């Protein structure tokens, strides 16, 4: 262990965090190194200074305001929402356009090959997706291409290319890491992969929900994909059922109840047509095409009204089933984010509280 290595240990030494061999070696080095003694004195000083902030008086009482917000709205609204979180706001805007519904699907599953495909997807440990997207709004069309990998239970990584812009994503649970080829575009670089069936590139859960939500399913002539015979189906997502369920979940006592109902009226005009190709041999989902036509709305004092529409299409190929996929956080060996990556996304999942940890 040399001088530089001891320097690395000095803070831990000041904190009393070293095991005995390291502590003894550090002390032996300190006896003969004035520089390290000076650094140690500095660490000790910083520690005492910053630790003193524990005693700074905190008189805030946010309990009443917090509980009022929770109890008054039922579906809660952040007090600073829209003011301080450009990244999250951008996500909300994108979601509002492309993912207009919060889908909470239930009910009977699809029949025969669709039900088989549902079970196959549910049991996969990993798979890959690749394909293309096309979004048209206000007369302008934006084309994109994507490649995604999934590893159970909740890891995704991939790349979305739109024109000259390339966005890379790593999603681990609620953590979303984003790297944008145009650094100045960071505030708008939010990946939208959701558990909603209407997401253009749905998560596994979203894919399952989509299969579970299809109505008016028609079987089309079988087709060959990559040499394999495939069932070919066309159907549509049961929007009315989703809207009804969404309306039933609103709290009539909420101050936002009427506004929520008005927003749902507009959403009934959403149309999602789906085509599926399912391998006749193993019932794996080989390909999916989705065409979404959705209203764009504005909400103001006069309520929510439609101001236009947006169409989004996605053709997704599924492959690499259960092949090894390693999806890791983009961190250096020292634990820092690798160059160009940003951590966005919502908070972590809630805990299962089994033990009590007290201050």
């Amino acid at each position: 262990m040399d001088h530089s290595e001891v320097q690395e240990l000095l803070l831990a030494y000041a904190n009393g965090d070293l095991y005995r061999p390291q502590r003894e070696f550090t002390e032996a080095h300190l006896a003969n190194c004035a520089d390290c003694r000076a650094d140690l004195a500095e660490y000790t000083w910083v520690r005492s200074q910053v630790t003193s902030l524990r005693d700074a008086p905190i008189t805030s009482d946010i309990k009443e305001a917090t509980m009022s917000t929770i109890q008054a709205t039922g579906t809660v609204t952040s007090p600073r929402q829209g003011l301080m979180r450009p990244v999250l706001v951008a996500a909300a805007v994108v979601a509002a356009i492309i993912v207009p519904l919060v889908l909470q699907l239930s009910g009977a599953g699809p029949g025969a090959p669709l039900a088989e495909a549902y079970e196959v997807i549910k049991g996969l440990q990993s798979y890959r997706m690749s394909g293309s997207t096309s979004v048209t709004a206000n007369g302008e069309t934006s084309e994109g291409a994507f490649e995604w990998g999934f590893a159970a239970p909740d890891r995704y990584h991939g790349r979305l290319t739109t024109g000259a812009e390339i966005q890379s994503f790593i999603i681990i649970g609620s953590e979303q890491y984003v790297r944008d080829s145009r650094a100045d575009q960071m505030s708008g670089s939010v990946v939208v992969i959701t558990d909603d069936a209407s997401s253009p590139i749905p998560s596994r859960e979203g894919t399952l929900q989509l299969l579970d939500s299809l109505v008016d399913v028609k079987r089309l002539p079988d087709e060959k994909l990559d040499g394999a015979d495939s069932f070919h189906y066309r159907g549509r997502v049961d929007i009315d059922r989703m809207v009804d369920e969404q309306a039933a979940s609103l709290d009539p006592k909420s101050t936002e109840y009427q506004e929520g109902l008005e927003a749902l009226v507009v959403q009934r005009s959403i149309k999602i047509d789906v085509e599926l190709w399912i391998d006749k041999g193993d019932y794996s989902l080989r390909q999916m095409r989705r065409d979404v036509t959705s209203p764009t709305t504005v909400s103001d004092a006069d309520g929510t009204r439609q101001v236009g529409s947006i169409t989004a299409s996605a053709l997704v190929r599924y492959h690499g089933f259960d092949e090894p996929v390693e999806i890791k956080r983009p961190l250096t060996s020292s634990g820092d984010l690798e160059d160009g990556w940003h951590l966005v996304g919502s908070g972590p999942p809630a805990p299962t509280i089994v033990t009590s940890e007290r201050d």
Partner: protein
Amino acid sequence: MDEAQVIARVRGGTTEAFGEIVEHYQTPIVRYLLRMTGDVNVAEDLAQDTFIQAYKSILKTTSELSLKAWLYKIATNNARQFHRPAAAALVHSADRLREVSGTETENSPNSVVERTAIEEALVRVPHEQRVCMALHFVEGLKYREIADIVSVSEEAVRKRVARGSKEFRTVYRATSGEED
């Protein structure tokens, strides 16, 4: 407070029970967010966000983290969205020091001025380092707990605290006029 019991009551529909969690943890969470933002009003707003997010999630998801660690993790994510512009921070710092010095020096100990200088120096340590310093030095969390909260290795936490400490010293000297 029996956290497991309180959470079971919340999940059972007794929303008021969540108030016990807010009451128990509001001081450390506000204190932590104050260290991260340097502004008590913002810290209180972000703390409210933190508890509201916790309430929403507590009903539907699970995690292996303890409640305390989980709240700090949400708070850390919320604090990450807040970045006070450096120039504003400098003005704020100078004004605050003048304000505290000018109005309180005669009747209060130097510790008030010094604490203000410490707070202002800490808030200007780079964010990732400040997270680890605040959680370790002020909130008293161990490196292992911090590593879980910020999703990095314990070694990375240790290095961030070390680097942050050096940065703190430099900033403190610059803002307080202390000479080497």
